[in-house]
């Protein structure tokens, strides 16, 4: 392990290689792609939350001058009702296909029904309005508790609950039910002196990336489809598009454009297969870009949830039992992140008895998709609120309570895995010692809250190739789309191994034809796993250079001398030497120049599937002030402490934390899908779906605790997701200290807080 290692590149703060192009407007994002003769498309979307589609008449649209093609679900091949692993976990192909273009039913307001390609977007919009759809409007159901009731409208005819792995026979909106158990909660509650049980509700929220979804596709005369798109994973788009379109993966090339934010929301395909169908019909490239309304009504979101949590503690502050029942909205098709929610809810702690039941419930809302630590933020809002109540009622400092119950290496999570070396307690101690926590908060209507959070992070698969240039610089080809500076954090790891300056590594994000399989930029995996691949590929370069130098030096040596092997060649600080001959020395640059005379070009390559994923923990401190007249909550000060393993690029790590905190604050205070009775969303714009602006926040202090992950050569842990987990609970606990009222619903908007204060 590398704790004491002095790094040359790692831990510095260089400017990212794509920086200049991104501050000058030169970088090409998905919506900036243009092709000769390109057509523009528009999607017709359901105005109803739940309706049977009786007929679709496209004739008037097709007759409009400038319209080149119209497609509906009839243009897609019949999708099998089977589960496939498409890089985002298991996906039912029929559901995926039906989400791209509705087949028999529209299952949510905004569900894609048909699409048009025309000479420009205005004609396409006019044409979409000429498509006549006959609907049989059905009653809709919008929340998990309602959808679980007897007699609730059923979304999927014939769908029954899979409970604890067994198929049941009753038709239901509950797609599945799981249970995690550790110890015996009933026994645990018997030991408790204080038991707190609460019900929590959290609203549906959106990822809110600023760049709308987009796709440009060209289906050429040989049946090959090329797709330009802003995506978190080119290979996922390739695989999902090939499945939906019913063509081999080799017939789909995906070229990832720069991506304007994703947060999990740019993993599934929405527009890509539709653009491809329109291109096949027209023989032209077709571009589709969503409007902001379409973004809210048809993509994302992350689930609203009903959380019932019961926890028991002894008088001296030991939590002895914790039980949770989590019901998450999946949206129109199964697949909410209720599983990850259950994996994370109690995992900062070593409670001896735990049980979690999770329910994945379909409702008439857009199919939910990942959003930064998906499921964990909902879950932590409940458990971290009850931890705060224990602290208050038992007269224990809330951070000390976390010290007393905190998880350490060797403790088991409720879902089975045992924690490896983790840094949760280190984050709590750093918070305890922080000046923020030790500065009294003064003034009326003010309160300080703390909360912790866990996200397990993922590894998955990555590929990297490093090509050595003759001047001693290298090009690095990787497949992880860069959403926040990962070109830099990956290149830095290669530069560290190669002993060359950061500026000598030129990273490029390649498409599906240009690099080996690489999973999504998500799960906080990119700097960890693709960085690992860069480390291995750089070592592959060094190994090849050592072999060549051993051979070269042998050729120079007099006959009879013992032959050198690669093991005899050392490499340090950018210079090769020989352990058996101190006089030999060749720099990386000299070796690069020698390539044509030592066997030709050198490319290092690595494909990895690293297993040593290090989980991430965070502990946050927030000060709020609550306006007693309006209930509006202002954030006065925020400090986020996080175990980051090893910060490759500290500024970019801080940025991940600050961004995660801000999204969490938005989730806590303002953001929510608001629905009318008929199932239509009433706030599908950035004006009415109120995300934090810079006027809503103070500076966000970060503390990077570095407990190296033993599963990564530099100790890296994923950092991107866990910072969104504690904020809603931390803010709720702060509001409690300010008002004396416990918050059980998200968002804690002014009206809600005021109601609580006046109750």
């Amino acid at each position, binding site marked *: 392990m590398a704790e004491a290692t002095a790094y040359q590149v790692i831990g510095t703060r260089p400017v990212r290689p794509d920086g200049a192009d991104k501050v000058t407007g030169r970088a090409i994002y998905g919506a900036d792609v243009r092709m000769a003769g390109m057509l523009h498309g528009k999607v017709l979307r359901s105005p109803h939350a739940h309706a049977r589609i009786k007929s679709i008449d496209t004739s008037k649209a097709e007759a409009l001058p400038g319209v080149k093609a119209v497609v509906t679900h009839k243009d897609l091949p019949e999708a099998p009702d089977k589960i496939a692993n498409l890089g985002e976990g298991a996906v039912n192909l029929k559901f995926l296909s039906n989400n791209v273009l509705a087949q028999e039913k529209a299952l949510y307001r905004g569900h894609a029904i048909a699409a048009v390609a025309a000479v420009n977007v205005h004609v396409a919009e006019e044409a979409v309005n000429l498509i006549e759809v006959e609907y049989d409007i059905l009653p809709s159901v919008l929340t998990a508790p309602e959808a679980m009731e007897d007699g609730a409208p059923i979304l999927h005819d014939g769908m029954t609950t899979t409970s604890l792995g067994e198929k049941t026979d009753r038709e239901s909106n509950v797609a599945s039910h799981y249970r995690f158990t550790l110890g015996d909660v009933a026994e645990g509650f018997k030991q408790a002196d204080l038991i707190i049980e609460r019900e929590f509700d959290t609203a549906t929220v959106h990822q809110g990336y600023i760049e709308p979804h987009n796709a440009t596709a060209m289906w050429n005369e040989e049946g090959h489809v090329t797709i330009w798109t802003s995506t978190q994973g080119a290979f996922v788009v390739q695989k999902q598009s090939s499945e939906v379109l019913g063509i081999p993966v080799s017939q789909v090339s995906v070229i990832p454009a720069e991506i304007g934010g994703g947060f999990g929301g740019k993993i599934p395909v929405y527009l890509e297969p539709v653009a491809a169908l329109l291109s096949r019909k027209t023989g032209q490239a077709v571009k589709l870009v969503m409007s*902001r309304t379409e973004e809210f009504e048809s993509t994302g979101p992350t689930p609203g949830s009903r959380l019932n949590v019961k926890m028991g503690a002894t008088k001296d502050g030991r939590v002895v039992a914790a039980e949770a029942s989590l019901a998450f909205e999946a949206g129109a098709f199964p697949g909410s992140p209720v599983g990850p929610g259950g994996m994370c809810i109690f995992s900062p702690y070593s409670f001896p008895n735990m049980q979690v039941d999770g329910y994945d419930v379909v409702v008439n809302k857009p199919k939910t998709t990942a959003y930064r630590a998906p499921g964990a933020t909902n879950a932590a809002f409940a458990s971290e609120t009850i931890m705060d109540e224990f602290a208050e009622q038992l007269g224990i400092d809330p951070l000390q309570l976390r010290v007393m119950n905190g998880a350490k290496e060797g403790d088991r999570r409720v879902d089975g895995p045992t924690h490896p070396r983790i840094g949760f307690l280190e984050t709590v101690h750093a918070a305890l010692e922080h000046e923020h926590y030790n500065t009294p908060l003064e003034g009326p209507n003010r309160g300080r809250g703390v909360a912790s959070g866990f996200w397990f992070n993922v590894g998955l698969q990555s590929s990297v190739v490093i090509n050595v240039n003759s001047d001693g610089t290298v090009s690095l080809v990787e497949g992880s789309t860069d959403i926040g500076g990962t070109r830099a954090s990956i290149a830095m790891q290669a530069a560290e191994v190669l002993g060359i300056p950061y500026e000598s590594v030129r990273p490029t994000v390649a498409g599906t034809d240009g690099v080996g399989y690489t999973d999504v930029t998500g799960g906080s995996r990119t700097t960890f796993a693709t960085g690992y691949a860069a480390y291995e590929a750089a070592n592959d370069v060094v190994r090849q250079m050592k072999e060549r130098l051993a051979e070269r030096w042998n050729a120079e040596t007099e006959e009879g001398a013992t032959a050198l092997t690669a093991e005899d060649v050392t490499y340090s600080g950018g210079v090769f030497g020989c352990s058996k001959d101190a006089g030999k020395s060749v720099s990386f640059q000299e070796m690069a120049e020698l390539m044509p005379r030592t066997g030709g070009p050198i490319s290092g390559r690595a494909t990895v599937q690293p297993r040593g994923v290090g989980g991430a923990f965070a502990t946050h401190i927030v000060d709020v002030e609550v306006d007693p007249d309006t209930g509006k909550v202002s954030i006065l000060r925020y400090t986020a402490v996080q175990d980051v393993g090893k910060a490759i690029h500290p500024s970019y790590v801080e940025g991940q934390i600050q961004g995660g905190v801000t999204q969490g604050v938005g989730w806590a205070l303002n953001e929510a899908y608001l629905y009318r009775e008929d199932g239509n969303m009433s706030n599908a714009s950035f004006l009415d779906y109120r995300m934090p602006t810079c006027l809503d926040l103070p500076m966000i202090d970060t503390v990077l605790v570095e407990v190296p992950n033993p599963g990564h050569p530099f100790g890296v842990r994923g950092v991107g997701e866990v910072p969104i987990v504690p904020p809603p609970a931390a803010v709720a606990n702060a509001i409690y200290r300010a008002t004396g009222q416990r918050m059980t619903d998200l968002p804690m908007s002014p009206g809600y807080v005021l109601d609580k204060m006046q109750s």
Partner: protein
Amino acid sequence: MATRIHVQTTLNGEAVEFLCDSRQSLLEVLRDDLGFTGTKEGCSNGNCGACSLQVDGVLVDSCLVLAAEVDGQAVNTIEGLASPAQLHPLQQKFLEHAALQCGICTPGFIMAAKALLEKNPKPTEHEVRYWLAGNLCRCTGYDKIVRAVLDAAETMEASA
């Protein structure tokens, strides 16, 4: 289709003329017809600020300006900010402070900050936050953006 409108304007200091439909926004003409895709589209209804640019020195959301309106006016976009030799101080400071992650909101933020510093060369943190509240960023939490703007103001003031 209605008769197309002939517009003569100055784009980043160069005379430019184009034909547009009455319904086309300045943002659409810049991006789709003139190929100036540095100005970004995030919402098309004036709520996110990604399409911020200046018309005759005034900061606008170009999605809310009709292309026909800029006849005879000077349009300045992100593409015109850097000189051939070097980035504008705002651009440089955004890079140094890691004030962008995905970068989609960055051109809008930089153009909005430029307009601020022209009006108020020495803004306080609160003034920066107030002025930039019309621009949404979902990645950074704004901390590093505000620092970059404050630092750029100082740099520009020192070299002025």
